């Protein structure tokens, strides 16, 4: 019992100073809770987007699950409801974009909310977007540098033409994979900028009329709705 008291006190103690961060965490947990229990195809698609796109970012998923409190809560939330099983997915008419970029937009919203809590959401969103662009450029710079270095190494294997050609072929295969990775990062940055107005409209709607919890919940629902209106849906495994 004493351990529980200490645990709860540890959680509550930083609240006065860290409330924006707790607000962001609460937003994520509530959103996760709602989506995992939703029967709508769109919400299930959004879950898939989180699962396939966002949590697939190296380190991010592991980082979240490695956080003891978040990990424990997520494990609880991930337990499927026993009384209301999710309905089978049905085809829908919205445009399905088979790319990773748009799938990551909801995660960007979460990062922005998680970093800023309830204030300056769009400022954090813009920071994240710009950072993605900078990171994509850095990724491309590193790839170019690695390409020049590898090709130089391959040329150094001459006069053994077979070894040199094999070296180039192997590198080109790796190069293509890395190129795709950098191009995906560029796509995410471009998508984030393109969808900024939608996110902005969702986040700032009725800003002064609602309390911060209601506002965050409304922003989550509105963002999902706006994506749907814009014809952006999220592919589900096994569906076209």
């Amino acid at each position, binding site marked *: 019992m004493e351990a529980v008291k200490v645990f709860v006190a540890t959680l509550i103690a930083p609240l006065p100073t860290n409330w924006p961060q707790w607000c962001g965490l609460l937003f994520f947990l509530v959103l996760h809770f709602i989506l995992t229990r939703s029967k709508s195809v769109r919400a299930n698609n959004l879950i898939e987007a989180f699962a396939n796109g966002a949590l697939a970012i190296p380190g991010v998923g592991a980082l979240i699950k490695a956080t003891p409190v978040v990990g424990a809560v997520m494990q609880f939330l991930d337990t499927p409801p026993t009384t209301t099983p999710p309905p089978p997915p049905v085809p829908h008419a919205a445009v399905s974009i088979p790319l990773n970029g748009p799938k990551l937009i909801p995660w960007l919203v979460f990062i922005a909310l998680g970093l800023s809590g309830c204030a300056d959401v769009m400022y954090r969103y813009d920071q994240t977007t*710009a950072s*993605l*662009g900078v990171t994509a450029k850095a990724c491309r*710079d590193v790839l170019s540098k690695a*390409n020049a270095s590898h090709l130089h190494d391959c040329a150094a294997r*001459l*006069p053994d033409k077979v070894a*040199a050609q094999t070296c180039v072929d192997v590198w080109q295969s790796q190069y293509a994979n890395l190129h795709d990775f950098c191009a995906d990062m*560029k796509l995410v940055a471009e998508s984030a900028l393109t969808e900024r107005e939608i996110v902005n409209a969702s986040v700032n709607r009725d800003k002064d009329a609602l309390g911060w919890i209601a506002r965050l919940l409304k922003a989550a629902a509105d963002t999902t709705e706006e994506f749907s209106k814009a014809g952006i849906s999220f592919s589900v495994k096994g569906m076209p």
Partner: protein
Amino acid sequence: MNELVDLLIVAAKGLFNLIPLWAGAKTQEQKDAILATAKQIVTSLDAYFAAADATDKAAKDATQKEIDEAP
């Protein structure tokens, strides 16, 4: 090992531009500047990637030519 260090230096140089982005903006003008920076960076990505692709292709073609012409 040297190659790895070189790559890390290139990555660090590229990511150096993150510092002003995350230094913190307090006024609305500074926040607007972040948005302008985001737009400028992201809209220039296509041209940046195209130029890098051309450079890489030229390097690959030069190496391939060297291999083909080797005795």
